[in-house]
């Protein structure tokens, strides 16, 4: 189950309305065959799908009104240049109807639709829905499941087709929880708790990213929502309660020793070992994560080594200081961390 952002499975684009898509196709092309894009126009969840519908409604209204304005402007430019005689009327009725009356009707209608969608977004899951607790840190996401002792980071597993409650808190400054393909944003407010929900219609991985400016590394505070069939999800949950995978080879055992006895344990936990730090992400399953450093770099041996030696070159300003790990011990440490699935 090793994924990087590049290889993450991505379901086929579902095109609900061919018309607008045709019009935007050229523009989409501009965007460079946005196959891997976490696009809100390619919704895969109930919440985002609703907003997508609203967007196309607004888009077409705007096109129509803009066409009207441009037509009037063009008419003036074509027919009222040069020698045309000035007319001194005051067509107040035209101004009121075109500028206030028609827009008012349109806006009232659209407002009604918008209200309905807002209510749908706010409806939330049932009371005893599965609850994921997401805690924002500068600049990574801690992920916990109600009733489970273990934690993970920057990767949220959910069962496909079910509405999952997400409880949002922040450990420091404001962040914002956004998975464009699944659900609009909810901010994480210091000193308070917020709730939102996720429902993925198809299995797959959906990229999310912090959308509230939160300091130096706001750019690298991404996460992945992995929607999987219920059985796989349950297996994932069960692993959260069990100790992390034990080291199998000598190298891994030495790596574990380095980790637990070194500085790492002060900040990181690995279930079933002496490492119980809470400053940084839980690393019990770090080997299977999609990235290192909340989307900063792909998760492979080279990047992991670089991260441990000096994460500041990878993600300048992040809260993990450069680690003075003996060059001889580094490969073992890497091997151990990579084995943690």
């Amino acid at each position, binding site marked *: 189950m090793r994924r990087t952002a590049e290889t993450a499975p991505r379901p086929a684009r579902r095109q609900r309305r061919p018309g607008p898509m045709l019009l935007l196709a050229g523009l989409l092309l*501009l965007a460079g065959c946005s196959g891997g894009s976490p696009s809100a126009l390619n919704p895969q969840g109930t919440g985002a799908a609703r907003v997508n519908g609203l967007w196309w409604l607004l888009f077409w209204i705007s096109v129509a009104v803009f066409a009207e304005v441009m037509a009037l402007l063009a008419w*003036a430019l074509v027919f009222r240049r040069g020698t045309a005689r000035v007319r001194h009327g005051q*067509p107040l009725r035209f101004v009121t109807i075109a*500028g206030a009356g028609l827009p008012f009707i349109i806006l009232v209608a659209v*407002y009604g639709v918008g209200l309905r969608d807002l209510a749908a*977004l706010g409806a939330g899951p049932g009371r005893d829905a599965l609850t994921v607790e997401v805690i924002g840190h500068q600049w990574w996401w801690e992920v916990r499941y109600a009733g489970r002792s273990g934690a993970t980071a920057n990767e949220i597993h959910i069962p496909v087709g079910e509405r999952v409650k997400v409880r949002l808190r922040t450990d420091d400054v404001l962040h914002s929880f956004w998975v464009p393909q699944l659900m*609009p944003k909810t901010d994480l407010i210091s000193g308070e708790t*917020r709730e939102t929900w996720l429902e993925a219609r198809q299995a797959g991985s959906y990229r999310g990213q912090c959308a*509230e400016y939160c300091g130096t590394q706001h750019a690298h505070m991404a996460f992945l929502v992995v929607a999987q069939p219920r059985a796989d999800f349950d297996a994932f949950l069960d692993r959260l309660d069990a100790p992390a995978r034990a080291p199998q080879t000598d190298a891994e055992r030495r790596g574990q020793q380095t980790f637990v006895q070194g500085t790492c344990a002060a900040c990181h936990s690995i279930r079933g070992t002496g490492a119980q730090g809470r400053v940084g992400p839980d690393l019990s399953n770090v080997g299977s994560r999609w990235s290192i450093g909340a989307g900063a770099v792909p998760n492979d041996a080279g990047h992991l080594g670089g991260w441990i030696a000096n994460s500041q070159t990878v993600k300048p300003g992040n809260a993990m200081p450069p680690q003075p790990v003996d060059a001889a011990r580094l490969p073992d440490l890497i091997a151990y961390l990579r084995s943690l699935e």
Partner: protein
Amino acid sequence: MSTTLSTPPGIGREDLARLAEHWDEPRSLRAWFTTVDHKKIGRRYLVTAAFFFVLAGLSALVMRTQLARPESGVLSPQEYNQLFTMHGTAMIFLFATPMLFGFGNFLVPLMIGSRDMAFPRLNAFGYWVFLFAGLFMWASLPFGAAPNNGWFAYAPLNQDQHNPGLHMDVYALGLLFLGISTTSGAINFIVTALKLRAPGMSLNRVPLFVWAIVATAFMVVFALPALNTDNALLFLDRRFDTHFFDPGGGGNVLLWQHLFWIFGHPDVYIIVMPGLGIVSAVLPAFTRRGVVGYPLIVLAIVAISIVSFGVWVHHMFATGLPQLSYSFFSAASTIITIPSGIQIFAWLATMMLGRLVLRAPLLFVIGFIVTFVLGGFTGAMFALTAFDQQVTDSYFVVAHFHYVLLGGALFPILAGIYFWLPKITGRMYHEGLGRWAFWLVFTGMHVTFFPMHLYGLFGMPRRVYTYRSDLGWDVGNLISSIGSYVLALGLLLVLIGVVHAIRRGRPAGPDPWEGDSLEWSAASPPEAYNFPVIPCVHSLHPTWDERTVESTTTGATKDRILSEGKRTLFTSELDARPERAAPMPEPSFKPLVLAGVLLVFFTALLLGAYPVAVAAVLAVAATIAAWLWPPRRPDEEIGIAS
């Protein structure tokens, strides 16, 4: 048709000589520091704001260079974060508002037929404070201590424990300092427009530009205190350990957002309103008729300025407030588009009835309509909470506000520059250069910002210093960056055009456009006293109106020439009946001194030299006391019963 340097009928040579004697300031270094002439001050506002615009624009170019390619290393995250914050803060506070205030300063007295602003020395003071506050903020950049928390500086990232260093102190103090200038300027505009209008200019004959400036000034008076409160509390939190925004001490981080946006939303109309006023002022000259629906437009201006105070929560649609309040603010935000719609269609109607003279100012007005309407539509989309929650804090929002800001402020400003350059400098610009500039700016603008809608929808958040290349944002960003260079080139041409006009332009004469408002009846550039004869206004288009013109020529009377002493006419607030001729102040060093002492005060606060700050406060009090100290007069003159 209007006054030129030769003596017009109705006013004697001696009168002109006496006016010149009382109003002219000598060309000396001393006069440069002491001037209170609204035209010089207005010009300084324009030049200084343009300077800050170039700085902020160049910051944007550096940002765009960094963002042109994924994972590029032009800037460190710390540098990028300071640059985008300074870009936004400077564009909003040091460019858009002061630039439009500069137009207001230069034009309002001319448009209402007055010889200066109501408080000329306060005006000079406001300029110096603006200059010093701008330098105060920009000076932090070379030290790597510039504000780094975005232009709205949310708590708690603005707090000491999350953001050590001087960054946010510069922000809080800089904006408080600048606020003094903005507030004093606003009050000055209000009083000027109320009391100094030429006789006969009743409220229904006030030019739309002046209406817009006055509405703006009222919004400043009631909106800016919220920002000042915010920043004062922030400074106390940072330096004196209070807990306003600290949940640990019982404070609340959302208080910052509420106060900021109670200011911030009216502020975006503070920026756009004078821009719309410029459009209304430019159109008559190039359509050869008055703007359609004057009363409707005035109504729209007033409506916008009131409703704008009731929509601030639409900037907080993702903070998880109760749905009920969201439905209210969503409705208010939806409704506020209507007055803008009225104005747009009034201008369209004007163009459809008039005879278009397609010169550079009109080109920029057309560019304004196209751009602003597109930006307005995305604004109307955000008003729907559900949609906003999806796109807020993404590049879609960046696209929206550049469309409305460039469309609603920059294009009108450029139109205004070309339109009034002849009046300000007495020289005509080069039309061909102006057209090139327009097309480059227009194309550059849309190439830069249109793609942002798309990659915003594709999930790109704003304020990221870099992005991975596998997300489908590469091409759009590259296009934006290319567009921004085109845009910069166009602006460079504007700059060249202005310099060229000043150096080489042919003399413009007082009224090159055959404009309708009073500034076109003054000389170009206007005399120090603006009008040899203060006109008597008989219609909404005084310069096109025979009787008004007559009032300054054959119909000139002594009480409107006022050549004894440095005086202008005060009139009544509503229907502009003459009240009295009032003396205007002489040039003075005090405004500069007072602003300088304030600079010392704020610098001392920034560096924590509190005793110095206290001393500066005392110096401020002393300067003001001396400034306003009443001159000694004989008893019978002041009216003591003996």
